[in-house]
């Protein structure tokens, strides 16, 4: 089952929530050190695989589950994570992606991206982006890659 996308067992702080098909997986991740921004929080990542995976990157974003649910999953605060869950990480863009990456390695990269952060803020222009954006992360990636302003 995990043969193509994940080595078993997942490393600490990473758990599989849903992997019953080859189009969409959900993973829960936790930051393991004592970074106060993320302490005792669990975040949920959604992976969407195109039929060109692994030549092309999966679409990865955080998804939110309301605090009232049994398993509340907020969107982590980070200067590169928009409040709608879209992650700005070059590893996930088609320019930064490499087919040797796996679900596990992506989760670990996002874990360390959180661990290393100390800024309690959203990306600049978050509000605008969130209210205007109707695209899927993959299409947005296309835009940033294509431009080096």
């Amino acid at each position, binding site marked *: 089952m995990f043969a193509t996308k994940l080595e078993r067992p997942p490393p600490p702080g990473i758990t599989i929530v849903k992997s019953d098909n080859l189009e969409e997986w959900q993973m829960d991740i936790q930051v393991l050190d004592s970074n106060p921004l993320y302490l005792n929080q669990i975040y949920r990542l959604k992976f969407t695989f195109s039929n060109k995976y692994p030549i092309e990157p999966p679409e990865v974003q955080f998804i939110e589950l309301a605090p009232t649910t049994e398993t509340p999953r907020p969107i982590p605060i980070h200067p590169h994570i928009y409040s709608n869950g879209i992650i700005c990480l070059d590893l996930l863009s088609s320019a*930064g992606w490499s*087919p040797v990456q796996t679900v596990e390695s992506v989760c670990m990269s996002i874990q360390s991206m959180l661990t290393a952060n100390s800024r309690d803020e959203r990306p*600049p222009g978050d509000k605008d982006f969130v209210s205007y954006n109707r695209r899927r992360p993959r299409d947005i990636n296309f835009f940033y890659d294509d431009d080096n302003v």
Partner: protein
Amino acid sequence: MEQTFDLPDSTDWLDTPLSLVAPLESSLRCQVCKDFFDNPVITSCSHTFCSLCIRRCLSTEGKCPACRSPDQELKLRRNWAVQELVEAFQNARASVLDLARKAAAAAKESESEEGVTEPVTKKRKVQAEGADNGGAAPEGVRTRSRARGANPHVDRVAVEVIDDTTDEEYVPEDGLVACPICSRRMKNEAVFRHLDSCNGAGAPAPPKPVSFGSLQPMSPASRKTVDLTNKPLERLPIINYSLLKDNVLRKKLKDLGIPNTGPRPILQRRHTEWMNLWNANCDSRNPKLKRELLRELDIWERTQGGHAQQSGDTVDGVMRKDFDAAAWSTSHDDDFKRLIANARKKKDAAMRPKTPEAPAPASQPDSLPILEATEATVPTHSQPPEPLPVESSAVSIAEHEVPVLQETCDSKMANAHG
């Protein structure tokens, strides 16, 4: 979907006393497809991948997926040592794993008294069920026969490997020679006449028929082609598509014997895929028939090619002939308006560089290339501006922020209308 649980995987070893075999198996697997190397080739940066995997990567990106150094498919070389390692490992795998699992089960049983026949893992249970023909003999006695029952074929092959080395050179001293196709033995002078009519079938079993099979786990059909053609397959050259007109490209595809219908981008991608399939097949010790490659191309066509448009390709959607420009403009109307507004703002800002909205290009030399206008709105830094900590080269933070999309959106709009 159930069968996917039975996919062999390097982690199969982890619950056994042979857990150290897991990294060994991992290293015999391609980092791209995560399966055992299939026709392994080595890049000029010394990384090994399946021939087809690395060809697909290089034709997409031109870089080694492991280290990102630029490479060309022309520089790929076959890595036969790895191929032999993989084949030998695969031959041995089932029986060794079975043994290891039995050892694990035995250890577990001796630990807990009540666990009489409880299988250790799901996978093990599947195998045991297939093999159990009733007897309730104690585990230790049954082990051997059960292993054979569970997977007779693999077991047999694995055993044969042992005396294989000598067998390959084995020639019965009867003064006859074997037909390279059907292995029937005949007089030396009869071979060439026989070759004209030999179809490889109906041959009587040669003295040691199996000595060959264990090292060549291919179907007899594909083995035959090697001997039949007997000359190296010619590789297909890379085409610079931009130099070819539509009809020339179509003719090229037709000459290659592959479908030549569909819009231009599909033609190019189909040709690339065919070239990859074909050239990877040239790296094979047991090349497949063209017919089989065509079937693989057809699978590609249905999953990723011309017949799979609806599922992917939102990115180059605007390039499609049937692209619905009107719908696109409507659905992105807000975006376009905002982008135009943004562009105006930016232009104004550029004219009055001292306004608060002005770009602040030099203020943060080490910062990410965020769109200047928005960067200026970031509250003045409570901490000294520092580059974001980056864990490893693989974990670098995105270089470009989303507001940047205005530039490319403009060009996309041009596409949409053009």
